């Protein structure tokens, strides 16, 4: 990687965090409705994964989707505009936080029903395979999704049809408020891939370089026709499942422990120790992001509401 790319990964992670901190504030001010699931703590996962893809590779994820949205290059202002339900949001204000997508950037959503996007991901990969395209579909989901039938159907199909899919389980330790070991028969989730004879791996999700390198290698294998791969990424969300989560299921010390292992902090130290950037360079990026997010908030707040006639638009093509 060039120095600029290293710095860009740092920029993206900080941008995700600050955009989400701004979103949390907007939520508390009552400007964002519905659910708001923050990705804070998990930034290295989507940043590392998306950085490793080629433009033709599709990305699809679950409802904790702000990270991927920013990684694929949707401007923070359009993400925030969607969160505020504005007409110029990425989904015209009709999707909200859980339904960000940008087809031009090969980002296929933002899906709010746990596990339901896995069969769809298999279909995206099928479409590329059918059309002879050299593309991989990267499908991300939480640990909770591995307990629902859709997951097992989709993994099975992907193996039977040798589909070019990278399954990424973001194991952030909890499905809502239920710890992995209380909901899943195996807490090392990658073991579930064994039942489908699928190559699998386990990666430290707090280390963006580790995630990126693992993803690069796996994507190359899939592109070579090896078929689907299951990657479990170990990570942690600092915030509740969604805003307003009382967090009775975990202790503050546990959160603190993980925060000491912060993905942005780890990456700062990496960049400094490898003499790619010094503290000043990185602080400068922080300030640039702060400014960008402040402008994004202003943009989103000043953006127009959808007109009433939008209610009936985009139900059908014909």
């Amino acid at each position, binding site marked *: 990687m060039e120095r600029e790319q290293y710095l860009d990964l740092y920029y993206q992670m900080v941008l995700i965090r600050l955009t989400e901190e701004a979103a949390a504030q907007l939520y508390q001010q009552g400007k964002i409705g519905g659910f708001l699931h923050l990705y804070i703590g998990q930034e290295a996962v989507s940043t590392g994964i998306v950085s490793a893809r080629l433009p033709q590779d599709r990305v699809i994820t679950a409802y904790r989707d702000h990270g991927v949205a920013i990684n694929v290059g949707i401007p923070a202002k359009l993400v925030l505009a969607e969160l505020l339900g504005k007409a110029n949001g990425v989904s015209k204000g009709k999707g909200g936080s859980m339904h960000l997508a940008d*087809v031009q950037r090969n980002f296929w959503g933002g899906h709010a029903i746990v596990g339901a996007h896995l069969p769809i991901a298999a279909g995206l990969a099928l479409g590329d395979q059918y059309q002879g395209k050299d593309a991989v579909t990267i499908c991300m989901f939480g640990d909770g999704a591995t307990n629902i039938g859709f997951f097992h159907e989709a993994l099975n199909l992907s193996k039977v049809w040798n589909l070019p899919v990278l399954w990424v389980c973001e194991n952030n330790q909890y499905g809502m408020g239920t710890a992995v070991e209380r909901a899943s028969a195996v807490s090392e989730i990658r073991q579930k891939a064994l039942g489908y004879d699928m190559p699998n791996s386990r990666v430290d999700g707090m280390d963006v370089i580790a995630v990126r390198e693992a993803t690069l290698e796996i994507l190359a294998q899939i592109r070579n026709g090896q078929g689907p791969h299951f990657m479990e990424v170990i990570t942690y969300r600092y915030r509740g499942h969604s805003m307003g989560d009382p967090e009775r299921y975990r202790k503050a010390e546990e959160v603190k422990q993980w925060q000491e292992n912060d993905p942005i902090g780890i990456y700062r130290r990496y960049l400094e120790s490898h003499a790619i950037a010094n503290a000043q360079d990185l602080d400068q990026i922080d300030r640039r992001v702060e400014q960008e997010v402040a402008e994004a908030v202003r943009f989103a707040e000043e953006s127009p509401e959808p007109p009433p006639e939008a209610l009936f638009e985009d139900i059908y*093509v014909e």
Partner: protein
Amino acid sequence: MARITYREAISKALWEEMERDPSVFILGEEVGVWGGTYAVTKGFYDHFGPKRVMDTPIAEATIVGAAIGAALTGLRPVAELMTINFAFAAMDHIVNQAAKLRYMFGGQFTLPLVIRTVSGGGRQLGATHSQTPDAIFAHFPGLKVVAPGTPRDAKGLLKAAIRSNDPILFIEHATLYQMRGEVPDEDYTIPIGKSTIQRPGRDVTLVTYSKMLEISMKAAEQLSKEGIEVEIVDLRCLRPLDMEPVLQSFKKTNRAVIVEEGWRSYGVGSEVAARIYEEAFDYVDAPIQRIAQKETPLPYNRTLEQLALPQVEDVVRAVKEVL
């Protein structure tokens, strides 16, 4: 014009569309090597090959889910659910995904998707394999629901569905596959969302679709012998629901009977009757009658099963009641 069966009409529509457009492909349980459990895709596997005629695992959610994904990449998948009873296992993908993705992402997603399935009772398959839950699926904006009652309509509507860019649930009927009818030889489509008059008449408007069209036609012939001429409006599509021919007919006859195979409560008859009352109240000369399946799970026993399903005599009786 050739006289062919409902099965042949559907099969020909699929075949011709696959020949015409390489982006059309079929996936489903036993559609390939087996040739389809209702033999609709017999011969397809040998002709089009395994890439375009894909046998799937028995995993309905993923059949529909994968079809949605493939449609998003620009292909035109025709997913087959062996029966509509199995669609419940794919309910999330039909109503929460297919019906909503376009709207929810602000028009970014396009789903040129057809889900073919088979509805209806009368074959002693027991309660879980004999349902006619068509109305449930018609409840959801974003989905289109087509249910033809003749070979001609089946072929024309399926071709239109495959060429459409919207997600369509195409409901065939298990006991119509042997039905014969005139089908044009040339390539044709029938527009989705247009009801039609299948039999002109002056005395009573009979609104129906799918298998109940056949039942209604028989009732009409019987009634005709007694000098009663019913006009039969075939809905053909449950969503969008085209009420124009129904209202026009009703304004002429001032009397209506609605015949559906599904249960009466919250059904097609409820919807059509409500619309007539809303939009043509001044023309109502008699309470609208609804003929539907008895409100029980469908039993296995042949006599009991037939007792539960609407019969020709039920329609005849209802027509006489509104007169």
